[in-house]
């Protein structure tokens, strides 16, 4: 079945630690890749997206993600997390022009001050 997998369900880090959240997808062909974030009590918002060009994508708040086609991966990274990064992180894939986003299961990130 076509799917998006996020390997880490719950990550706990101390402030200033580096972050990497894994995302793998099982679709072949052209894909558009997204990371969304949901801060406590807020709606989902886009962190970054990839659809072509440089596979290293920079997003808001110091986040970046790298698309590795051979590994079907789109991992999210941040060199130094802050307490305010505590949130749910969702990877999503769109491979058609229907707007259909397929989401991963989400990763809860808890950053301790």
């Amino acid at each position: 079945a076509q799917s998006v997998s996020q390997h880490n369900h719950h990550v706990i880090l101390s402030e200033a630690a580096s972050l990497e959240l894994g995302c793998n997808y099982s679709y072949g062909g052209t894909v558009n890749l997204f990371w969304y974030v949901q801060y406590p009590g807020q709606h989902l918002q886009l962190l970054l997206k990839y659809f072509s060009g440089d596979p290293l994508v920079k997003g808001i708040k110091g986040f970046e993600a790298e698309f590795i086609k051979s590994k079907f991966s789109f991992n999210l990274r941040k060199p130094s997390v802050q307490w305010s990064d505590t949130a749910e992180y969702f990877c999503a894939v769109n491979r058609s022009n229907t707007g259909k986003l397929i989401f991963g299961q989400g990763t809860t990130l808890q950053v301790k001050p």
Partner: protein
Amino acid sequence: DTAVSQTPKYLVTQMGNDKSIKCEQNLGHDTMYWYKQDSKKFLKIMFSYNNKELIINETVPNRFSPKSPDKAHLNLHINSLELGDSAVYFCASSPGLAGVAEQFFGPGTRLTVL
């Protein structure tokens, strides 16, 4: 100046009731969506409309009926509510169907069926 708004924010109701959730976007987008987020926070698309036309209809029970009176509104009506319908429902919109288009999400409606 909320971009995508939903009402109500919370909805608590009894099994068997019929309820509606409303969604409005002021972004001028052509496409709107409904997603369901279950208790494990898994998000799954239910429906999408483009210019008031149904584009995506996932395997959702026919107790769920979306209605788009105009491009700025997409409402979700649920008949004969069941316990398993308890979830957070998110509305979203995007400036078209293109795969690269960012989707803008509403704040969600937490539905609890007792």
